[in-house]
């Protein structure tokens, strides 16, 4: 068995956004290549091009030196490329065995599924992870009854059940415990010796160093470096991911950078826990702009939603020493908290209603009965001009605005209520550069007026440029707190890859 896959100068656009401008990756029989990159570097896009989930816009894929085209995941599968997805592709109600062999069931004569054969083959596969799962996990239990790590194991077994030659492990270790990870790595070594090739994507730096033979680094959609793992240190690898520290496009006054330690603490969180969060402590002062960093899906969204009372949580949350327990966003709003959600069109706006209605949605109760419309227009216009909103008329539907302006409306609807704490969930995603600048100024202004902001962003540069202090999240915990001189991009990237605290400068 041998394989050699080469992705050359891959280009991929999503709408107007260039996700990948020059992606390159070579992987050959008997090796593990780690695909490495910070947030938004394009690594998930590159893996999706290779496994046929998205179709490339430019460049070419060579399989054993012949050009190939993957219009669908099935096309890639037929040529022996298997992917272990982080978002599982399992049917919860079906059993472990049924899931693994779905659509590839061995048949008896007459077209009947050979359940006995399926059971035997599944048990053989399960042996690969023997001893790392509970006794209750058998081939005939429904997947829905399994905990996340065992579901992940089923997903891995499903991918390798058709004996692929190239295996893409996309964050396959994220929900496994350490014993299961070690077993997976033993299997990876076996696969290597059988001549399979493996592409390994992980947010844990130590795993990359443990298992990978070579690395390939993506930065801003370009492959910037590749080489042998043996010849590079953790620190250097982080530097490759970060590149030259780039100066950010707007000025930051040094005076503001030092957050007044003397300012009173507005929000204190102790040991906050949810299904994802594993004990979060944080404090937020008046007028502070606190950044929340880390790779996507490390619990940032859970943290914001818990503070907003939108999901069940445990732990102590206090506003000015007064303990609060929000079980509904209504309660949080009453205490002056506002959330600007990440998905504008789904959670933040009523897309086909007017700008005015969107701006006034949380505040209609202040306008009496019947609604005093003239006053609402006056207030609406005032908010719009303070936001620098580019629009024709308050009566236009809000989806006639550009992405950035629509985002301003979401902030604006809360500003009208003068919130004390503003929670932002990746608000600048898909917003053009010019509007971003205005948006940053607006946030600064809100802080200057005394409100506090917790700002999660998947754009590392933006966090560094904007925030006084950044908490980096990693697997549901706060991995590092960066402020002052430690507030650099390489520290941010290192912490989001779980690099040990000592190695952070």
């Amino acid at each position: 068995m041998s394989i050699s896959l080469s992705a050359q100068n891959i280009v991929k656009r999503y709408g107007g956004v260039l996700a990948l401008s020059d992606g390159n990756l070579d992987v050959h029989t008997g090796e593990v290549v780690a695909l490495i990159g910070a947030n938004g570097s394009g690594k998930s896009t590159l893996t999706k091009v290779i496994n046929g989930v998205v179709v490339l816009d430019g460049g070419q894929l060579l399989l054993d030196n012949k050009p190939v085209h993957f219009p669908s995941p099935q096309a890639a599968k037929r040529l022996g490329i298997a992917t272990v997805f982080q978002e599982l592709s399992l049917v919860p109600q079906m059993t472990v065995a049924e899931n693994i062999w779905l659509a590839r069931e061995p048949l008896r004569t007459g077209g009947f599924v050979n359940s006995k054969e399926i059971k035997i083959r599944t048990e053989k596969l399960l042996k690969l992870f023997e001893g790392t799962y509970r006794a209750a996990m058998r081939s005939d239990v429904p997947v829905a009854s399994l905990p996340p790590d065992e579901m992940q194991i089923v997903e891995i077994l499903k991918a390798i059940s058709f004996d692929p030659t190239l295996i893409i492990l996309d964050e396959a270790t994220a929900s496994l415990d350490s014993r299961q990870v070690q077993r997976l790595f033993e299997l990876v070594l076996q696969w290597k010796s059988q001549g399979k090739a493996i592409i390994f994507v992980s947010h844990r730096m130590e795993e990359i160093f443990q298992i990978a033979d070579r690395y390939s680094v993506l930065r801003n959609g370009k492959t910037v470096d590749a080489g042998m793992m043996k010849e590079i240190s953790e620190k250097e690898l982080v530097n490759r991911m970060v590149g030259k520290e780039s100066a950010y496009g707007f000025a930051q006054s040094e005076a503001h950078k030092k957050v007044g330690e003397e300012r009173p603490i507005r929000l204190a969180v102790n040991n906050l826990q949810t299904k994802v969060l594993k004990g979060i402590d944080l404090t937020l002062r008046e007028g502070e702009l606190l950044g929340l960093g880390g790779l996507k899906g490390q619990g940032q969204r859970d943290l914001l939603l818990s503070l907003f009372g939108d999901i069940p949580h445990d732990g102590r949350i206090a506003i000015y020493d007064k303990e609060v327990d929000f079980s509904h966003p209504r309660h949080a709003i009453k205490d002056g908290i506002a959330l600007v959600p990440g998905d504008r069109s789904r959670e933040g706006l009523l897309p086909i209603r007017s700008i005015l209605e969107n701006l006034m949605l949380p505040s209609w109760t202040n306008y009496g009965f019947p609604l005093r419309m003239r006053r609402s227009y006056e207030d609406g216009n005032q908010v719009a001009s303070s936001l620098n909103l580019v629009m024709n008329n308050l009566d236009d539907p809000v989806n006639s605005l550009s992405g950035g302006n629509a985002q301003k409306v979401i902030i604006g609807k809360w500003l009208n209520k003068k919130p004390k704490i503003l929670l932002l969930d990746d608000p600048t995603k898909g917003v053009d550069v010019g509007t971003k600048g205005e948006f940053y100024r607006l946030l600064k202004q809100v802080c200057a007026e005394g409100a506090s902001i917790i700002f999660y962003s998947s754009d590392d540069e933006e966090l560094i440029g904007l925030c006084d202090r950044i908490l980096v999240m990693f697997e549901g915990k706060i991995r590092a707190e960066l402020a002052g001189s430690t507030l650099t991009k390489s520290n941010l990237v290192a912490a989001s890859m779980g690099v040990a605290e000592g190695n952070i400068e």
Partner: protein
Amino acid sequence: MKLTRFQYLSLRYPYLLAAIIFILALLVNFYFQKSILEPNTINNNLRVFLPLVLLAAGQSIVILTGGIDISVGSIVSIVSALLATRVGLEGAVEQTLIWFGIALLVGIAAGSINGFFIAYLRLQPIITTYATSFFFGGLALFILPQPGGGIPKEVAEVYRTSNPFGLHWAFYVIPLLIFVWLLVRQTRYGRYLFAVGGKAQAAYETAVPVNQVIFSTYVISGFMAALSGICITLLTGSGNPQIGDPMTLQAITAVVIGGTAMSGGVGGVAGPIMGAITLGVIKNIISFANIDTWWQTFVNAIIIVTALAAPGVISLFRRNKP
């Protein structure tokens, strides 16, 4: 994912609840009507229950994949109207059989219309089949504006009075249905039904032909509705362009009692068949206990609302615990 004991049991043994309700209903029925266990009564009962059994079996396939077919009652009505006008009370036996075949084709065609809109145009099942139910219902009234006509008496008598080997036809049809279902379960197609109903996206990523599977379920449902229409025409011997109207809700209720989840992916055909028989037994109870007949509809509605609300109510109470 943590499952409650109840959720786990209903995943592993979806027919459990159906069996319990069935036995309870039977016991109550026995209290009011001591003759319920006599062969003659059983024959009479199953003869009346069979049309609903067939309808529920077809509906269960659709619901298993996460859809719903509200047009089945109207397909029953079309068949009744067609047979009553095209064959007539004076028709020949051969002619009747030919029109039975045509009726089945009509059912398949009606199901194909539903399936096309839902699987390929991605319209909502509940809206689509609600709309087509008026279309089919209208056609039935166009063919036969008022109840009347019928099929030859000698054909109807075969269904109504003959009991081969002492047992009514239903005794052979129902086990056959279950047997066919058990075979289908063991094919790839059977697995696809569960996969599509469980999580269509995952099924699609695993190369299951999701659209074709969804389409096929409506065709099966249409076919079974036509079969049910033939059956009920045999039972009554006459035509009625609105005879299927109340049957849709009953068929869905039967599926729900039968342990097939409305959200899809759990259940089968045997449970809904038991559910249909249970509904018939409940109807018996109501008539023998001298309760007003509108209770029948009321009981059906309560069963459906309870079944639909139960998962929501459970999660409401479990919600604020992390």
